[in-house]
């Protein structure tokens, strides 16, 4: 069985290390916050100007002056700090953020990503995604392996306008975990119940299967 969105988030949470400053994008990446492993202390950065993002507020305790980059109401925690948008992207640009998790429409086997625009159809803008992918040291993409039409989102080359070049290090989809290497997507794990053949069929970009490929633990 392919992974649920929650399971994709849970698998990505295994990449978190103690002391990391982490920026989580909108969608599946936001869910990663729910699965931070026991004993791992991470600080979440929200690019609208908050370090130390806490959980959603209890009903009745929402503060319109306290939101995350997805415009959801959030809370502070001990150690939280507010800052303006220039400082927020300053810390991103200066490489202070250890890990960025983003959604994507397409990822190419050279690490290019497209996630901000579908010409003549969807014009939402890039938000902070272009700044994040240009600067972050370590970027993981969380997404479905195929689009609603069943077409591969892991491609030899992005067909949509790109957000950043050669920047993605790892992709976690509902089918498996893939490192971006000079040889293309390197499958290191497959989801429980998913076969390597299925992954091969549904991956258009260059794909190599790691010798020690194993079933994902989620």
């Amino acid at each position, binding site marked *: 069985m392919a992974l649920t969105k929650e399971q994709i988030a849970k698998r990505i949470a295994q990449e978190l290390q103690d002391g990391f400053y982490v920026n989580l994008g909108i969608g599946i990446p936001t869910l990663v916050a729910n699965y931070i492993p026991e004993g791992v202390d991470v600080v979440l950065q*929200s*690019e*609208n*100007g*908050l370090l130390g993002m806490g*959980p*959603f*507020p*209890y*009903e009745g*305790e*929402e*503060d*319109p*002056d*306290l*939101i*995350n*980059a*997805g*415009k*959801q*109401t*959030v809370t502070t925690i001990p150690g939280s700090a*507010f*800052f*303006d*948008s*220039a400082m*927020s*992207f*300053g810390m*991103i*640009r200066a490489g202070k953020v250890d890990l960025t998790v983003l959604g994507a429409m397409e990822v190419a086997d050279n690490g*290019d990503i497209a996630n901000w*625009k579908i010409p*003549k159809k969807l*014009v*939402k*803008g*890039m*938000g*902070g*995604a*272009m*700044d994040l992918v*240009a*600067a972050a040291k370590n970027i993981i993409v969380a997404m479905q392996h195929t689009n609603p039409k069943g077409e591969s989102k892991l491609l030899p080359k992005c067909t949509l*306008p*790109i*957000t*950043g*070049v050669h920047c993605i290090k790892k992709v976690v989809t509902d089918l498996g975990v893939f490192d971006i290497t000079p040889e293309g997507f390197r499958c290191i794990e497959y989801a429980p119940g998913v076969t390597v053949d299925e992954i091969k069929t549904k991956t258009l970009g260059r794909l190599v299967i790691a010798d020690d490929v194993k079933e994902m633990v989620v």
Partner: protein
Amino acid sequence: MKKVVSGADEAIHDIPSGATLMMGGFGLCGIPENCIAAIVKKGINNLTCISNNAGVDDFGIGLMLHKRQVKKMISSYVGENAEFERQLLSGELEVDLIPQGTLATRCMAAGYGMPAVWLLAGIGTEVAEGKEIRNFNGKEYLLEMAFDADFAIVKAWKGDTQGNLIFKGTARNFSPLMAMAGKVTIAEVEHLVPVGELDPNEIHVPGIYVHRIFQGKDYEKRIENRTVRKKG
């Protein structure tokens, strides 16, 4: 030194049609509600708005879009506004979509008196088209120009009669940067206090950047995406 004005109508009285405005806020968080209402009421048009977002259909800059007062938006993300998308796809509205950090830094550059900055975001993408590129330490950067805005309009939490400003929570976002960048800066505040009442250690924007300030009223502070968890 008289910076205090009676309200939004007086604060915006000399904004002409065709002006370039910076407007603070992230989504609906920290937007200058009073000034937006006054601009909508007065019907100034042909405006260029530099603002991270374009509001929603019936609030924020969305209200100005609805009355076709905006000629051009310079934003990073406009996904929450169907009217915006309609005007854009039909060609009625010009839009310049730029990376959020670039937007913030181009505001900052203006407030710091820097004509341009070298930024990484957008290298290799359509954002880079037509821009000067230079290599520093083995990496390519884009030359991005400081914004040139006639007016900056922000909402602060507290302000004093000399124009010193303090922001609250994530309502800070672009507002201090824009406040520093406007040729004329207008601040509406939730709490206007006499000079001397704010702790100098806590000022986010010194009054030198602020030309007009007023006590705002009737703040709705609409929440765009109310998300809560259950108790227990």
